[in-house]
């Protein structure tokens, strides 16, 4: 053991400095983003919204990056989670219970995709499109046949504390804070939820099952040769991932104050953008860093979209187009940069 202790010192020291570099990049990014927000006059509501969607970014990270499974189920699991949460709140259940129930509903959606992949050997892309198609009807049924459920006057995580928080804020900092009170409350509550979920996920990914799930995405053949049931790993991975998407759905529903059947539209591309933005800006290495990067990527996505909106003074009808542009920038910029770099190399020599 003494030999291992001494040999372990150096890599551990190295990984500590890698962690420090990551933290520094994170702080630098936060400073840049804060600067742009203040210059561009971006409302801090964009942060709350990014936090609401953040776990959907983690979903895409888990499916595309960890499991290496092209899974679009998030588009279906998100509204199913939102609908489950809304119907339970309307029927008088607590928001906490509603969120947990949403997780279960989302996990079952992920299980559906996994089973189609495992039983029929239909690849993830097609399997998840089948599930999204069916999920639309399931969402409508959960909402009792309506395409929209308003949560006005219901107790949600936000509305429960909003009045007290507003009064406290005005008392402490004066009347100018009144307008920001809901936004600040969202940031605090959603921030806490996201941090708690990330911590649980971090623990989970570092259990034996978590290790096996990570390995399944990297080398399925080896996982089988190691005597582990890779089907089980795919199923557990997809259930966890889409359960998180459903939690995000239930958070966004409580934020917007309504559930809608079309809530998940285009979410997959947004999650993908979040993952790539996080990877490009923070260059994460370890499991924990990758999780943080996915969340930060979603925040940057929402903030830059809000920035474009306020800079160009666009109407809200243009929101999907701007989303598409931000996604295009996130996906395209790294590729363009690589091509420019190799072009420079060719022509400099």
């Amino acid at each position, binding site marked *: 053991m003494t030999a291992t202790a001494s040999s372990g010192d150096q890599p551990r020291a190295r990984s500590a400095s890698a962690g420090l570099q990551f933290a520094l990049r994170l702080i630098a990014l936060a400073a840049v983003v804060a600067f742009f927000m203040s210059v561009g006059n971006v409302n801090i509501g964009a942060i709350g919204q990014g936090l609401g969607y953040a776990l959907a970014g983690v979903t895409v990270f888990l499916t595309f990056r960890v499991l290496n499974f092209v899974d679009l189920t998030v588009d279906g699991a998100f509204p199913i989670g939102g609908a489950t949460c809304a119907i339970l709140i309307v029927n008088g259940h607590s928001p906490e219970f509603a969120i947990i129930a949403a997780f279960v509903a989302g996990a079952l959606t992920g299980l559906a995709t996994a089973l189609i992949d495992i039983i029929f050997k239909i690849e993830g892309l097609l399997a998840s499109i089948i599930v999204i198609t069916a999920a639309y009807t399931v969402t409508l049924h959960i909402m009792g046949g309506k395409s929209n459920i308003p949560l006005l006057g219901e107790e949600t995580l936000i509305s429960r504390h909003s009045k007290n928080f507003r009064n406290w804020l005005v008392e402490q900092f004066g009347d100018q804070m009144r307008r920001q009170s809901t936004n600040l409350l969202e940031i605090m509550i959603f921030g806490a939820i996201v941090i708690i979920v990330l911590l649980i996920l971090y623990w989970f990914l570092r259990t034996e*099952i978590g290790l096996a799930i990570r390995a399944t995405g990297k080398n399925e053949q080896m996982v089988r040769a190691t005597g582990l049931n890779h089907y089980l790993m795919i199923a557990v991975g997809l259930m966890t991932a889409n359960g998180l998407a459903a939690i995000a759905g239930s958070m966004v529903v409580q934020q917007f104050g309504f559930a809608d059947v079309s809530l998940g539209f285009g979410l997959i591309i947004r999650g993908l953008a979040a993952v790539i933005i996080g990877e490009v800006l923070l260059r994460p290495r370890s499991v924990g860093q990758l999780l943080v990067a996915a969340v930060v990527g979603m925040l940057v996505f929402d903030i830059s979209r809000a920035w474009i909106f306020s800079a160009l003074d666009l109407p809200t009808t243009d929101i999907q187009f701007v989303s598409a542009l931000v996604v295009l920038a996130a996906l395209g910029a790294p590729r363009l940069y690589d091509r420019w770099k190799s072009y420079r190399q060719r022509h400099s020599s």
Partner: protein
Amino acid sequence: MLSLEHVSVTFNEGTPNEVRALQDFSLFVGDGEFITVIGSNGAGKSTLFNVISGAVQPHSGRIELDGRDITYRPEYLRSHDIGRVFQDPRLGTCPGLTIRENLSLAAIHGRSAGFRRDVKAAHESWFFEQLEQQHLGLEHRLDADVALLSGGQRQAITLVMATLTKPKLLLLDEHTAALDPNAAEQVIALTEQLASADDLSVVMITHSMQQACQLGDRVIMMNQGRIVFEIAGEERRNLTPADLIERFHSLDSGAELSDRQLLG
């Protein structure tokens, strides 16, 4: 230990591309026995391994491991008793995970994965000792990403992983073919060491006549899904690569002759 009785595997049955990869194939591997398998490409060697490990199911016949019928047992369950090393060094280890994580994964072998911590402090000295025996210095690089290692190093790690939890049978599928001569030699030395230390049965496919003579107690030559000849006992001990190449060629020219006769 391992016995295959009248096992047949046919691919694309009933089409013009029908391949009879194994034909009424029978083989017995005793406890602690080390068998080398040679044969030209398409002789059915890899199919033999796939059928033993469960990646391919036989059309007929019976496979027993330690007296237990495993003919239709799923691949991942069989892996509890069977360690495998593939030709491609990338297949046996997981890139993106550290050496420690890869070994931890192998240490789960034979159990089902649970909510225990993936990397355990209790395993540290075990991993260290296993890697120390290889004299590759990898025991000091437990936190290195496997993707950064050379093919030989990855193959050495794969060997350790495959034998970590003491399986009954080790299948080596040309596991040195993709390595440079130096690394191949090291991996072969490690193979001999691991095979002799545990009372482990080993079946090794190789294209190197040198290896086929150097390692093991018995040589099997396969062609068109059958065993063409077997060399064991006294004859095997005196076997030289030259003998083996001669017998290999005598077989080849026989096939060539019949081809020519057919065409002529």
